């Protein structure tokens, strides 16, 4: 009886703490100037949280190492370029297609869709792309999956980077190549109307915070669902999962599709926020940046990934440009005879974080309990034979 009461109390305390944290997050921009740089960094961080949570579904839950996550980021961003700008200015004799667009965008040529439709569109194309990327990897295992997904990510970025020469509909290319597509429409929501990032960043912040909360909720529900348990079973032992009746094909494809959809949501938000889409930013480095967040936080741990994404995002937007490249640190470096900016080697910093975490703390900052067990668990056979290579080759056999 007391135990039940205690549990109920714990749960209530959890809700109170959670609510307070969300409130603190929501009130944060009010203490800052409307166009404060910190709010901008926070918006980026939360957008990366959405992406990292998506990648966590694939890598953390289902255990499929996806090195081509940039594909979904690219598709989400390109969706805004296609459907929320004047890029296809020729459609309908330059009158354009407008569905739920703001008063301003209503008069422009090109395709202009409401943000909510845009998000649904991005989710659909990213989920389809996820399935297409997933299909060839079904028969492969481990490291080969990583390379195939990497290849897909590179192909998609290449197609967008050179897409100005690929004309699909009459004279309309699929992208603007190395030139950016801009301007992208501001986010336009049914009740709140058009958000204007030129006067205040706050609405964008609340918008991405809301997206984050929805995605977090979906993540928790997915993790505890039948599907989520199937993913974790798959990660732990594919053969055992299959013999227990987990449908491998469906489960794997759904993980790619769900993970991709989150990437699409994030890209779809970032398009209007950046106000332009540039294929030059679709680089392998993005995949590694997001993977770094998942690894830093802890594979499979939702809170960990949340923390990892926020941390790594601020390493990127604050620590490297403001601290490591700040006057004090640069002074120290030049007195040591070193003369370089950390921003030149930011991907080296992320690589270093990956390496360090994997060697020193592979379970991440906030480990997921099950995954930690998988990492440290020893079967009796291994305990008897302390041969270093044993585990590796046992897994192979």
């Amino acid at each position: 009886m007391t135990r039940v009461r205690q549990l109920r109390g714990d749960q209530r305390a959890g809700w109170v703490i959670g609510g307070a944290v969300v409130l603190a997050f929501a009130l944060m921009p009010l203490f800052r100037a409307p166009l404060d740089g910190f709010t901008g960094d926070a918006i980026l961080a939360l957008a990366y949280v959405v992406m990292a949570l998506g990648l966590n579904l694939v890598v953390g839950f289902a255990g499929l190492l996806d090195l081509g996550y940039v594909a979904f980021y690219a598709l989400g961003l390109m969706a805004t370029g296609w459907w929320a700008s004047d890029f296809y200015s020729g459609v309908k004799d330059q009158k354009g297609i407008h569905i739920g667009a703001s008063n301003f965008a209503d008069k422009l040529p090109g395709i202009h869709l409401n943000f909510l439709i845009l998000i649904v569109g991005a989710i659909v194309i990213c989920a389809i792309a996820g399935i297409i990327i997933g299909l060839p990897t079904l028969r492969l295992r481990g490291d080969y999956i990583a390379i195939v997904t990497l290849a897909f990510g590179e192909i998609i970025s290449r197609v967008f980077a050179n897409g100005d020469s690929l004309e699909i509909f009459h004279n309309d290319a699929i992208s603007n190549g190395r030139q950016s597509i801009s301007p992208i429409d501001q986010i336009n929501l049914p009740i709140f109307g058009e958000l204007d990032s030129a006067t205040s960043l706050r609405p964008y912040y609340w918008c991405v915070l809301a997206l984050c909360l929805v995605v977090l909720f979906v993540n928790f529900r997915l993790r505890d669902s039948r599907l989520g348990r199937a993913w974790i079973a798959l990660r732990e032992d594919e053969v055992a999962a299959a013999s227990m009746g987990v449908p491998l094909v469906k489960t794997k494809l759904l993980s790619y599709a769900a993970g991709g959809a989150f990437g699409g949501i994030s890209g779809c938000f970032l398009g209007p926020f950046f106000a332009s889409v540039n294929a030059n930013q679709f680089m392998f480095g993005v995949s590694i940046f997001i993977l770094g967040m998942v690894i830093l936080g802890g594979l499979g741990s939702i809170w960990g990934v949340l923390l990892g994404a926020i941390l790594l995002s601020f390493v990127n937007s604050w620590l490297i440009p403001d601290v490591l490249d700040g006057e004090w640190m640069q002074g120290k470096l030049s007195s040591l005879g070193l003369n370089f900016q950390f921003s030149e080697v930011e991907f080296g910093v992320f690589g270093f974080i990956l390496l360090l975490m994997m060697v020193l703390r592979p379970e991440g900052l906030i480990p997921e309990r099950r995954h930690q067990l998988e990492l440290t668990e020893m079967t009796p056979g291994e305990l008897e034979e302390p041969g270093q290579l044993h585990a590796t080759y046992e897994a192979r056999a």
Partner: protein
Amino acid sequence: MEAASVTAGPPRRRSEAVRDFVSRYGLIAILLVLPVVYGLQDLSNDGNLTRLGENLAEGVSNGAILALIALGYTLVYGIIELINFAHGEVFMLGSLTAAALYSPFGLTPDTSAAGLILGLLAILVLSMLVSGTLNVMIERVAYRPLRNAPKLAPLITAVGMSFILQNVGILWIGASQKSVPDLIGSQEHLFNISGVSINRGTVLAVATMIPLVFLLTSFVAHSRLGKAMRATAQDPEAARLMGINVDTTISLTFLLGGLMAGAAGLITALYQTSIWYFQGFSAGLYAFTAAVMGGIGNIRGAVLGGFIIGIIQGISDNRIGNDWTPAIVFVYLIIIMVFRPQGLIGEETREAG
């Protein structure tokens, strides 16, 4: 799959024969698409195959470089089943080392032939040693601590290592492409083979690659250490019981792979006459494609795959455009991985499922 084919009986025979045929020759047919299409185009436009031949010649020199890099992937994968993702960067740093050694050795395009040969040989040895040592150090730092970890862990550190090394390259020579002196006149015409002009660079690449591959194969096939490598690749536990020092053998494998990558680095600096911190990324992935194509773990396969990918690269660079080459090679990579993960001349592997 197998059970189904047994119960289906004779009516399925024909479809099975078709499937056998496709799985054996399908990949070869796909590989022939590019040369055949452009060959026909040349025949109808020019009436001869000279243009295609020139693409092939360029492809052969690309192939020699890729083959040397692919050897590193194939040796390492053969022994510890790890994709050494940082291998492309080992090659890149070999290239940077070689280019940096030009001026200390006093090598300029005006140096006499004898001085050039001696100097380049010395640089070859040095850049090979640098790359080899670097590869051994990478194994020590990033892979050995994770031998017992799940298989994806060392792959993630490998990716991290690759980024670190790329940025070492940026710190060394900056983020833009840097041209280096054209010591050997690599684009100078040397002789013709049925109308196709062969330049010095191609000859140099092939002439460097062949003895190195010959040395490597005979080392692996005949020396005691090579025997230890093959034993470790087959069964590390049994090898350990037979008194083979598995850790040393693995380090040796990384050393050999690094040596080859260093040689490829010098050839690239001489042939392309430009160096770039990012050159290892795409070259590494192409070489990995080559290694998989030849059957990973198979030395002859890596060389064969290197030439095939090099030729695809040569045709695509000149006919479709530099920008599209990575996409095309990656399409081939996916096709190979999905439909023939054991490669052209490899045996069935675990990955083949």
